[in-house]
């Protein structure tokens, strides 16, 4: 397994379906996560690590959210053997690591879809360059125009790389020259570098490709 300081970001895969208690007042329970058509049953320690992989709301935007970040947070929560639990989740494809800007990150994008869980709330007269996502009357995440575009459209495509290519082609067609939105590689790198901003409040999730 790659060393933690390799620059890889850690991402959770799947949609949270929620807790499952079988009987009234029973302490037996697990939490379900759906990836594609498969349901995974996570125990409390697995769910804690999977949840932490979404990022932390109070994390500085420019702080990379890595395996080390998650394990540090897990230790603070009292999760035992976090390293082993995390490795198991990677093996089950419920967590994935990639480094933005690499060929491997394009493969990562080809394997996954970005699916929104909240509403697009548009921009404002005060800051028309910032777009919000959240619930009606309750903005939760603020995004750049390029990230907002992918937030709104990427889930219609079979995978995230096709979405970046489609968005870049559209930008070129309307005469935009900024490479951040006309080059799918640059667009993907910028998205992945800040993706935890969407993932930490569960404004979006990564699913397997169609």
């Amino acid at each position, binding site marked *: 397994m790659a060393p933690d300081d390799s620059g890889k970001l850690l991402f959770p895969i799947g949609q*949270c379906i929620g807790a499952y208690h*079988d009987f009234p007042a029973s302490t037996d329970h697990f939490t379900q996560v759906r990836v594609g058509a498969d349901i995974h049953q996570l125990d409390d320690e697995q769910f804690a690590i999977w949840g932490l992989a979404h990022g932390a709301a109070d994390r500085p935007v420019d702080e990379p959210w890595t395996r080390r970040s998650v394990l540090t947070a897990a230790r603070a929560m009292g999760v035992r053997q976090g390293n082993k639990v995390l490795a198991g989740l990677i093996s089950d494809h419920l967590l994935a690591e990639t480094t933005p800007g690499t060929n491997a990150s394009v493969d990562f994008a080809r394997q996954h879809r970005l699916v929104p869980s909240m509403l697009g709330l*548009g*921009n404002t007269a005060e800051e028309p360059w910032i777009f919000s996502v959240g619930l009606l009357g309750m903005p939760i995440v603020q995004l750049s125009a390029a990230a907002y575009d992918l937030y709104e459209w990427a889930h219609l495509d079979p995978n995230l790389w096709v979405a970046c290519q489609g968005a870049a082609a559209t930008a070129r067609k309307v005469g935009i020259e900024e490479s951040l939105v006309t080059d799918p590689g640059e667009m993907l790198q910028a998205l992945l570098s800040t993706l935890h901003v969407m993932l930490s409040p569960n404004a979006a999730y990564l699913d397997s490709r169609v």
Partner: protein
Amino acid sequence: MGPFHPTLGGPPKHHIVRVGWNTPKLQDEAHFDIWALAHGLPAEMSTEPWTRQALIDAADDAEKPGAATILDNLVELGLVVEVARGSDRAREFANSYCVRSLLMGLGNTREDPARDGIGIAGLPPILKVRPRVFEIWQWAHLWPTIWSACEGIALVTNPVEGSGAEHASPESVLDFMLDAFRDLISHGAIYLDLQTTTRRANTSD
């Protein structure tokens, strides 16, 4: 997709809604208000069929004039659809539209194991629903159309007792789904979208 302000300090040009690959525009706040109202009022979804007249009455109660004309415009834009349960139109509707799920599953609790919550992590559920309704939130969005979701869900749903059938019929699932949509849509747990054809993955190479 919210209001679009093209310039600093300027008014919104319009509200944008994504429907499939298109983006019809809501020209003013009045159109946005009626479109929002068409999602339903959560408190009334279990008692009142959300029809054109119910919506116009609710708009009158909220002192929003011109609802009937605006509603015609929204139908024309493809932003509102009228469907009657059990009709041919319902089947056509189910073949043309798909479900998109929002929010996250919170599951059930020890105190209330019979209902599943949907909402935001760390907050009380926005709504709690029976397992058959939760199933729609959980699975229906994986199918390309509402009708194909009905066919898939019918295969794992028990039939009406005494019917002699091995599975529930897709038609009965569609009837159930149309009822369940009202609660799910009014709480913002799902929305309906036009069925789309995705760009082909091999264009990425």
